[in-house]
């Protein structure tokens, strides 16, 4: 008996359902996608006053730089006063603050010991937060050739609220 040769049938998958779902997923992700700016932190540690006092008994007293931020009208910054004897009130006051802090660290002899130097801020309550952050940034370090050069790591607020 001679069998009749049949052509093999091409198996076709129905892709419609999968494409539907894939497009729904794509639309979902596109709709929920948000471009957000990268955020960073100024990491700070604020030990409670009592613990701080106990610890400070065992440690040498660090050098403290006192920085006062005075507010002008509408919460804008008016001036920066350092150690009650140096006042900056012009537009580049923050870079001058950085230079002063750097020179004070250098005057101590060993820049590696800058970790022991502290800055205590006395900030006017009405001063806008952005100016405070700029001042913290100015004493924390600076950017040299795209690299961060750290200055002061310990920052305090007046009234025993210490970073």
């Amino acid at each position, binding site marked *: 008996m001679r069998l009749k040769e049949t052509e093999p049938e091409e198996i076709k998958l129905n892709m419609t359902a*999968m494409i539907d779902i*894939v497009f729904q997923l794509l639309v979902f992700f596109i709709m929920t*996608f948000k471009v957000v700016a990268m*955020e960073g*932190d100024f990491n700070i540690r604020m030990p*409670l006053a009592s613990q701080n006092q106990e610890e400070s008994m065992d440690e040498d007293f660090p050098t403290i730089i006192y920085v006062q931020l005075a507010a002008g009208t509408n919460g804008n910054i008016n001036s920066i006063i350092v150690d009650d004897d140096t006042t900056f009130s012009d537009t580049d006051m923050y870079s001058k603050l950085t230079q002063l802090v750097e020179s004070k660290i250098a005057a101590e002899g060993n820049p590696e010991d800058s970790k022991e130097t502290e800055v205590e801020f006395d*900030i006017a309550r*009405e001063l806008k937060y*952005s100016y405070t952050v700029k001042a913290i940034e100015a004493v924390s370090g600076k950017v040299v050739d795209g690299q961060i050069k750290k200055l002061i790591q310990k920052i305090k607020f007046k009234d025993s609220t210490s970073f």
Partner: protein
Amino acid sequence: MKFTKHQRVEILEGDLTPMIDMTFQLIAFFMLLINFSEVDRAEEITLPSSVLAVAPEVRPDYQIILNLEPSGKVKFEGQEFDQIDMLGPIFRKEISAAAREDVTNPGDIAVIIRSHEDTPTGLVQDLIAKCQEESLESFSLRVKEQVRR
């Protein structure tokens, strides 16, 4: 007149393979970039920017993200508090929740303050003082990363 035999009508099918490839690549792209943890961010808060701020490399074991508005309103996990003094019970609840996740020392809980750039600094200090009342000691001031030149 003799008609020619009808030719079989073939269904024209485009090759869908490149389109499906591309679509899957797009889905993979968006899936990798989507970040559901952004619910803690209050979009209306404009953070101050800084070139020195460093994005955290490691996520803290337990964190509390507080969004502070210029009016003194605090937003935390979708809840809104008109005054900073109202946060005490919330902090105690969070400290208990942290303890259940083996973060027993409140000092190890990271408090991330996202304050609007126009907020009076006094309010930020009040918020920090309120946290300290509840033995929270580890703080991060969150700012927008500015591109270094």
